[in-house]
């Protein structure tokens, strides 16, 4: 099965603390991976993609083929980071979504 696994449905951290949202995928080849974010009452939007290797809003994600992971990290969480985060793998004719992690940053 072409799975994307996000083990944490809910994650709470204090403002200024580091945050890591976990993502594991099952695919033997070279995956095309993204993180999408959905802020309250807004549409899903791209946060970053692994191929660009850039940092967006302080977030980074590194592809680890050995561990088949693509964890999303930020060293200092901000209140405006509170949102739903989806790890996504592109493949064939579709995007495969994880179940999402709801991040709450506590002031």
């Amino acid at each position: 099965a072409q799975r994307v696994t996000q083990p944490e449905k809910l994650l709470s951290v204090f403002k200024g603390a580091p945050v890591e949202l976990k993502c594991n995928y099952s695919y033997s080849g070279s995956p095309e991976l993204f993180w999408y974010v959905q802020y309250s009452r807004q549409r899903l939007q791209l946060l970053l993609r692994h191929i660009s290797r850039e940092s967006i809003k302080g977030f980074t994600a590194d592809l680890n083929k050995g561990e088949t992971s693509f964890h999303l990290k930020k060293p200092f969480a901000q209140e405006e980071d509170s949102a739903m985060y989806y790890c996504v793998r592109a493949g064939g004719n579709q995007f495969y979504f994880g179940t999402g992690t709801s991040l709450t940053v506590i002031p």
Partner: protein
Amino acid sequence: GAGVSQSPRYKVAKRGQDVALRCDPISGHVSLFWYQQALGQGPEFLTYFQNEAQLDKSGLPSDRFFAERPEGSVSTLKIQRTQQEDSAVYLCASSRGRNTEAFFGQGTRLTVV
């Protein structure tokens, strides 16, 4: 508008009623996707269009679900004889091509009563 537009935003249907959900993709985007998102779940793939061709409908849950994109732009997802289990948010996304960034609409929340 610059983004993907979906209408209606909310739809309440009586069980057994037919519904039609509309998606206006970003102009020029070749690829169009429909997803179904149940409460507390990630979006699940329904179908994929490349221009007007429906290349993949493997995610459609039953033959009550039908999608079309006759002129390669606007798409309609039709659900016949709606059931309670069809209650979900239906998301449309478009992209320039396969595996490129997908832009999502706000979704249509369907509630079947």
